C-alpha cells in the first residue's frame, strides 16, 4: 500500500510541474489562439538561464530564479514581437508552422551552448535527507517545487481574477473586437500573454532542473507532454490545465509503476499520455473543462 501512496506522491510532484508548464501553454492559446509548439524550448531556456546564473555567476538560487523568470519574460515577449506580431491575421496553419520553426531555431541555439549535449545538476541548497512519514517519502526539492508551483498557480489565478491587466487579457480571449472597442491594445495583450507564459515556463524549467537534473532531452520532452495535459484539461481552461496536469502525472506514475516489467512492457509512462490524448481527441475533444465551441464539420 505504501508503494501506492509513494506513486501518488511522486505523481502529484510530476503533475504539478506539468500543470505549471501547461499553464503557460494555455495562456498563449487562450489569448491569441496560437498553438505554441516551442513551449518546451522556452522551458528549457528558462532552466538553463537559472543554472547559468546560479553556477556561473554565483547567485543564490532563490535570487537567480526570479531573475531568470524576468529574463525569460522579456525573451518570450521579444519572440512574440519579432516572429508572431507580423503574422496576426494570417491563417492559423502558418502561425502554427512558425512555432514549429521557432522550436527548431531554439533547439539549434541551445545546441550551440554546452547545455545541448551535456548533463548538469543544480548545486544542492536544501537538506538532502527526504522527509518520510509512514513509508512514503518526499525529498525537500520536490516539496519546495510543489509549493512554488501551487503558489504560482494561485498567483496567476489572482492575477486573472482581480488585476486590470489580467482582466483585459481575459477580455481579449473572450472577444477581440469588443476588447479593442473599449480601448484594450490587443497586440500588447498578445505580447503579455507570451511573456507570462515565459515566466511560468522558466519557473517550471528551473523546478524540473532542480528535481531531475538538467538534460535537454528531458526538458524538451516536457514541452511535448504539455499537449496531452492541455487537451485533457481543455485547451483554453487554466483550471483544466492544473487538474489535468496532476491527473497526467498520476497516470504516468501508475503506468510506469504497475505496467513496466509486466507483459514485456517498458517505458509505458512515456507513451501513456499520448495514447490517452488520441482517445480523448476521438471521444471528448474539448477536454474536461474546455468550452464546447468546436465546430463539427
Amino acid at each position, binding site marked *: 500500500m505504501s508503494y501506492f501512496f509513494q506513486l501518488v506522491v511522486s505523481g502529484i510532484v510530476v503533475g504539478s510541474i506539468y500543470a505549471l508548464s501547461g499553464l503557460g501553454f494555455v495562456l498563449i492559446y487562450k489569448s491569441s489562439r496560437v498553438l505554441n509548439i516551442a513551449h518546451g524550448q522556452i522551458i528549457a531556456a528558462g532552466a538553463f538561464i537559472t543554472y547559468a546564473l546560479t553556477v556561473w555567476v554565483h547567485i543564490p538560487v532563490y535570487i537567480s530564479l526570479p531573475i531568470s523568470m524576468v529574463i525569460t519574460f522579456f525573451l518570450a515577449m521579444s519572440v512574440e514581437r519579432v516572429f508572431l506580431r507580423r503574422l496576426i491575421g494570417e491563417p492559423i496553419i502558418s502561425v502554427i508552422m512558425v512555432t514549429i*520553426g521557432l522550436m527548431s531555431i531554439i533547439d539549434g541555439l541551445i545546441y550551440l551552448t554546452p547545455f545541448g549535449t551535456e548533463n548538469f545538476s543544480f548545486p544542492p541548497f536544501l537538506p538532502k535527507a527526504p522527509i518520510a512519514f509512514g513509508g512514503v517519502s518526499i525529498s525537500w526539492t520536490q516539496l519546495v517545487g510543489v509549493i512554488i508551483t501551487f503558489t504560482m498557480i494561485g498567483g496567476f489565478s489572482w492575477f486573472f481574477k482581480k488585476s486590470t491587466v489580467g482582466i483585459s487579457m481575459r477580455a481579449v480571449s473572450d472577444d477581440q473586437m469588443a476588447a479593442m472597442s473599449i480601448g484594450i491594445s490587443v497586440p500588447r495583450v498578445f505580447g503579455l500573454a507570451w511573456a507570462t507564459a515565459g515566466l511560468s515556463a522558466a519557473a517550471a524549467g528551473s523546478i524540473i532542473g532542480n528535481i531531475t537534473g538538467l538534460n535537454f532531452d528531458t526538458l524538451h520532452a516536457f514541452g511535448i507532454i504539455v499537449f496531452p495535459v492541455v487537451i485533457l484539461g481543455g485547451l483554453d481552461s487554466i483550471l483544466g490545465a492544473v487538474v489535468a496536469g496532476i491527473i497526467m502525472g498520476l497516470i504516468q506514475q501508475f503506468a510506469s509503476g504497475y505496467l513496466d516489467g509486466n507483459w514485456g512492457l517498458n517505458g509505458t509512462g512515456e507513451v501513456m499520455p499520448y495514447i490517452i490524448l488520441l482517445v480523448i*481527441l476521438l471521444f471528448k475533444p474539448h477536454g474536461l473543462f474546455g468550452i464546447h465551441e468546436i465546430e463539427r464539420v
Partner: protein
Amino acid sequence: MSSNRWLATGNYFTSYKEEQRIFFTSLDKTAMCLLLLCLFAWPFFFDLDNKYMLVIDNILVAVIAVIGLNLVTGFAGLISIGHAAFVGIGAYTVASFARVLGDNHVLVTHAWPLMILLAGCSGAIFGAIVGLPALRLKHLYLAIATLSFQMIFQWTINFMNFFNQGQTISVGRVYWLTGEVSRSKHYMFWYYAILVILVILGFAVRNLLRTRYGRCLVAVRDNDRAADAMGMHPGFTKVYAFGLAGFLAGVAGALHAYLYRGVGIESFTLQQSINYLAMAIVGGLGTLPGSFLGPLAIKVLDLQVGNVSEWVGAHLTFTTNLATALRPLSFGLVIVLFLMFEPRGIANWWRILRSYVKLWPFRY
C-alpha cells in the same frame, strides 16, 4: 485560345476541360519530355561518386514523401507533424517482413515491388486511423493528433524487441532480371527504380488533382462549410487525405529501407517530421512543382550545412557539436523566413519569372 500561350495576354479557356489539361501547350509537353529524358539519361554521361548518388536518391525518396505531405498539408490544409512516422511505418513494414522471414527471403529480395506496394498500403491504413479525429475536429487538434502518433510510433519502435529497439534491422540485396544487384550498382539501380516510381506517382497525383476526388481536397481546405453544402463530406475527405498521404509516405519509407539496406529509428524522428514540413513549406504548400523543388533545396542546404560545420569544426576545436546545432538552426530559420516573407515558396518564384517573361516588355 491563342496559338501561343506564352505570348497570350490572358487565358482564353472556353471550357473547364481545357483548363484542366496537364499540358497547356505542346511546348510544355516537350519541355517535360526533355526533362524526363535528361533525368533518365544523365548517368550515362557523368560518372558520379557514390556519396553524391546517395544524396540524389535521398532527394527522390524525400520528393515522394513530400508529395504525400503536400497533399495533406498543402492541398487539404491539415497540418501533419508526424509525417516521418508514416514514412517509418512503410520502412518498418519491409523491416518486419525481413525480420520474420529472414532478410534474404525471396519475398523481400525478389518481390520488392510488391513489398513497396504493401508498405504503401500499411502507411495508408495508419494514415486513415490517425486521421480519424478529423471526422470531428479541425486542423489545430489534428496537428496534435499527428504529433502524438509520432511519439507513440517512436516509443513502439524504441521499446519493442521485435523492432530491435530502434537499432538497425537489415534488409537484403534485391534481385533484378539480371540477377542480384551488386554493391557498385546499388545506388544506380535504385536511382532508376525510384525515378520510375516517382514519375508514375507524380502523374497519378497530378491526375488525381484534376478529378473530383482531388478537387474536393482543395474545396474542403478553402471552405469546409461550402464544401459540405456542395455535397462533399468534409470529415471523410480529410480522413481520405490522410490515407493518401500515408500511402505516399509508406512507399517512400519502403524505398528508404531498400536504399539503405536497413531500417533504424533515427530516420523517422520528430526532427525528420519537421524537416519534411520544411521541405513542403520551402517548395510551396499546395503546389505540385513545390514538392519537387522543396526537397531539392533543403537537401542541398543540408549538404552545405554539413560542409560548413565540417570546415568550421576543423578550424575551431572548441565547438564539438556544431553540426547538431547548425542543422535545426538553419532549418528553423528557413521555415520561419519563408513563412514570413515568401509563404508560397520557391514554386512562386517560377510563377513570377513566368509572368515576367510573358508580359515583357509591357509589364506593369
